[in-house]
């Protein structure tokens, strides 16, 4: 454990750095305010915070890089004693990518699309390696195997788009290692990756940092990832370091109200309660005023908090906290207390899926005319699920598992290959949305992942919400306005939002509008497609509370798709685990997350990271991405850590029911 006050061996040193941009009114608006931070040799430090907290800006500033429009207001960053912002271009270029390397957030977009992988890594070698250029070819292969990519020789020849997300991330790591860096900056390196892939990448980074003695600066909003790879954490809020200390100090008993609120808003696998929402939102750049930046959201704030800005003061524990009331922070709880609990569910069926099979492959006009048989394996197959009124079914699985595909078919956006979708135990719904009757449409509503794309940017919130009200209920005039305001109140936005445009709202507010639009139709069933994954954790917690409130009031059923197993656990009554479009397991939430489960569920649960420094994920299967399900046998055969033999490859696994309503499809008898 490295201590924050250790005087020697600092690789990167940030000294009272402030960075800002010129606002519309001509004033300089700060994005970073008086940051001082030291990164020591071989140490890994995490920068945590919500979007807009300045964590990425700080990481890039450590490379002497500012995004367009930003400038240094005061202070400097030094890397091994060299001041980065007063360096010449050539000197910076020799440091960047060499002794100090960056692993970007979105490797898919950070690799140049027109250059082969080999050429991109060789470029880094040419710039930073002292070795003769004949050795570069072999060195590229060596780097690619070092990041545990299978078949590096073929990866060299590929273009970035031919790799999966996890592979692209590994390539980015290999490229960063090319210059044999002393420090690595990682900007959200696992965001957007599947849980299993993320866990594997983090293990790789841990091992690399240890073996090569590199310092790491790890930027993330994910405290679970930080807990796994970092020694020390700095929690950022509104461009300031709010709390800094060892992982244990920050994650076990943080001495800053914001850090406590953040921790409480994270859904945890070990916790059956809904996470606690952190109300309000951070001040805009320049809007922090004279006092503490967190004052408006703080439960223990007093008068002094709004008049004087607290210093980042050393605490007896060794952590540094920017709070006037460190003695009172323990009043703020670290977890939620709202249990989803057992609600009385009626026996009325809300939705049932019978033998659903879906395929994206459409026979081409040419194939049809020559009578070619479609031999491809369907993307989704054999889905049988019944959902009761008021029940929430969570759908989990890695990307490509068919979760969203199933939602699209229920909504009528993607006709199934075979099988039927029934609502209320009636006749099967028409497979295409345009053939469904108005009431059938009203009963099923969908909320999409990204509200930026699902809300029309040219319509006001009032117009957006009016559409379902006019369409399904024929409201107009005063009645329409009243109902719209009521809806806005229900999603806790308030009637004054009615004339605003989506672009004037934050991400969380936009998603609330999307929820309000779905509920405007008074649906029986709401399909939620990763609706919290684009939101910050504190906003996500509020969204989960809202969904829970609404289903209690309206007795609505949800099909809740998410890649985050902790979120699904917090909200769902039942959970279905999908792999390659096939059901592996379905059952009550406590059973699926309990002792007896499908090997794939175990793999998924083992890869989940908890914001706990003593928690170790269990990686039992590779994170190889499969492009198509196998033609026969168990869908999970190729990656299963508990494979029992050739029976898995040839025979479809039988259904086992260890408890009533808990179904597992597996050859293993003693689940």
């Amino acid at each position, binding site marked *: 454990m490295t201590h924050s006050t250790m005087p020697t061996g600092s690789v990167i040193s940030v000294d009272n750095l402030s960075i800002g941009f010129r606002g519309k009114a001509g004033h300089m608006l700060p994005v970073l305010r008086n940051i001082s931070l030291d990164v020591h040799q071989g140490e890994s430090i995490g920068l945590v915070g919500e979007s807009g907290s300045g964590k990425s800006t700080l990481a*890039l500033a450590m*490379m002497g*890089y500012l995004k*367009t429009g930003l400038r240094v207001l005061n202070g400097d960053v030094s890397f091994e004693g060299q001041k980065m912002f007063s360096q010449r*271009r*050539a000197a*910076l*270029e*020799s*440091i*960047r*990518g*060499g002794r100090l*390397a*960056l692993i*970007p957030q*979105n490797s898919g*977009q*950070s*690799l*140049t*699309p*027109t*250059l082969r992988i080999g050429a991109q890594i060789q*470029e*880094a070698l040419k*710039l*930073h390696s002292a070795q003769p250029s004949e050795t570069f070819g072999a060195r590229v292969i060596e780097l690619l195997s070092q990041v545990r990519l299978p078949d590096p020789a073929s990866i060299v020849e590929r*273009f970035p*788009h*031919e790799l999966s997300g996890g592979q692209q991330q590994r390539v980015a790591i290999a*490229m960063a290692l090319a*210059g044999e860096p002393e420090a690595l900056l990682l900007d959200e390196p696992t965001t957007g990756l599947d849980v299993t892939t993320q866990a594997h990448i983090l293990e790789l980074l841990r091992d690399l940092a240890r073996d090569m003695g590199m310092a790491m600066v790890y930027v993330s909003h994910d405290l679970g990832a930080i807990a796994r790879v970092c020694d020390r954490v700095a929690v950022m809020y509104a461009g300031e370091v709010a709390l800094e200390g060892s992982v244990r100090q920050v994650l076990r008993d943080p001495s800053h109200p914001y850090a406590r609120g953040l921790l409480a808003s994270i859904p945890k696998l070990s916790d059956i309660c809904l996470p606690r929402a952190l109300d309000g939102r951070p001040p805009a750049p320049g809007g922090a005023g004279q006092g503490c930046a967190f004052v408006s959201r703080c439960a223990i704030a007093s008068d002094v908090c709004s008049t004087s800005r607290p210093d980042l003061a050393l605490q007896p524990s060794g952590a540094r906290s920017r709070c006037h009331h460190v003695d009172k922070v323990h009043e703020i709880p670290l977890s939620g207390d709202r249990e989803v609990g057992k609600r009385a569910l009626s026996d009325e069926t809300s939705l049932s899926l019978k033998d659903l099979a879906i395929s994206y492959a459409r026979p081409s006009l040419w194939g049809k005319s020559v009578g070619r048989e479609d031999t491809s394996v369907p993307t989704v197959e054999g889905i049988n699920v019944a959902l009761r009124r008021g029940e929430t079914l969570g759908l989990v699985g890695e990307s490509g598992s068919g979760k969203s595909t199933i939602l699209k078919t229920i909504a009528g956006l993607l006709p199934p290959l075979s099988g039927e979708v029934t609502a209320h135990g009636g006749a099967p719904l028409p497979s295409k949305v345009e053939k469904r009757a108005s009431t059938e449409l009203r009963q099923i509503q969908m909320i999409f992942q990204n509200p930026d794309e699902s809300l029309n940017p040219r319509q006001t919130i009032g117009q957006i919400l009016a559409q379902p009200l006019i369409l399904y209920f024929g409201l107009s005039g005063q009645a329409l306005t009243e109902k719209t305001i009521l809806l806005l109140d229900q999603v806790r936005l308030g009637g004054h939002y009615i004339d605003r445009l989506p672009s004037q709202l934050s991400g969380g507010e936009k998603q609330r509008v999307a929820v309000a639009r779905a509920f405007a139709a008074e649906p029986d069933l709401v399909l939620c497609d990763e609706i919290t994954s684009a939101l910050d954790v504190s906003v996500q917690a509020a969204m989960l509370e809202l969904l829970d409130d609404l289903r209690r009031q309206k007795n609505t059923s949800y099909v809740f798709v998410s890649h985050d197993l902790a979120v699904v656990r917090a909200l769902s009554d039942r959970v279905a685990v999908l792999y390659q479009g096939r059901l592996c397991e379905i059952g009550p939430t406590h059973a699926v997350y309990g002792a007896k489960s499908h090997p794939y569920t175990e793999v998924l649960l083992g890869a989940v990271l908890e914001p706990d420094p003593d928690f170790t994920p269990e990686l039992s299967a590779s994170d190889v991405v499969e492009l198509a399900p196998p033609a026969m046998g168990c869908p999970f055969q190729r990656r299963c850590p508990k494979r029992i033999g050739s029976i898995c490859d040839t025979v479809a696994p039988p259904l086992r029911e260890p408890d009533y309503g808990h179904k597992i499809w597996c050859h293993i008898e003693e689940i």
Partner: protein
Amino acid sequence: MLAMLFRRLGLGAITVWLVSVIIFLGVEMLPGDACTAFLEREAKGKLLENCREDLGLNRPALMRYTEWAKGAVQGDLGVSAKGQKPISELVGYRLRNTLLLASGAILAGIPLALFLGVVSALWRDRPVDIVVSTLAIFAMTIPEFVSATLLILVFSVWLGWVPGIVLTPANAPLVEFFPEVLLPITVLTLVMTAHILRTVRSSVIEALASDYAQMARLKGVPYWQMVFRHVLPNALLPAINVIALTIAWLLGGVVVIETVFNYPGLGRMMIDSISDRDLPVTQAIALIIATVYVGVNLAADILTLLANPRLRTMHIRKG
């Protein structure tokens, strides 16, 4: 990949065929025919019938179309109604002259547009960019005949450097078109450059702001190496299609320019044939222009396919 190529070629051929049907039907629907135009007032009674007999105009339309199409495929575009000469012969020199004009504009315009586009993107919002972008807007918005007239006024009337109109006969050797051809080339280049430049500028700016450009900088790649290796190959892909569209536009643009400068090319021949109601010639030129249009776009599509690894590998993977 190869299948893809053949499919595109097939689609191109179908397009040209459809165009030929539309042209033929269009001409069919016009009142009168080559004979009424040729005979003018005498177009009645025995004389008209004889003429139609001679030209085969009294046969069913389908038969005439098949014959015309068959001839066109073999390079025989029929006979002009006016001078009773084979059209292929008449078109030959005119096509050559227009190609001289167009290729002059293309050879000057494309490199100039790429260069200025890249320069104004790299020095965005600096004086170079402001000057170039402003001039481009002028060049785009002023109609060709106005800029042509202005150039004639300055370079031939005031300065007297080049003749304002072309008096060289159509079948003269190419060298005799110099220096008169320079003015029309300049006018076409101006408009062309402006269109391509603006696309190039915006796509270079977009690529400069991309994550991969930022990553290259943070990898320690020197600025100019980043520009040439990482930014330009990606930024110039969309330019291919704009260049193709501009070249296709050029074929229409020459009609106006050739008329203004009295230049003996395909465009002016088309105008003349229309005013003379020489329908076989109009038909033939329309077909030629349509074919070139389809051909240029086809070439651009194939080029994009070859230059973009994402598209190039897509078909291999899926196949």
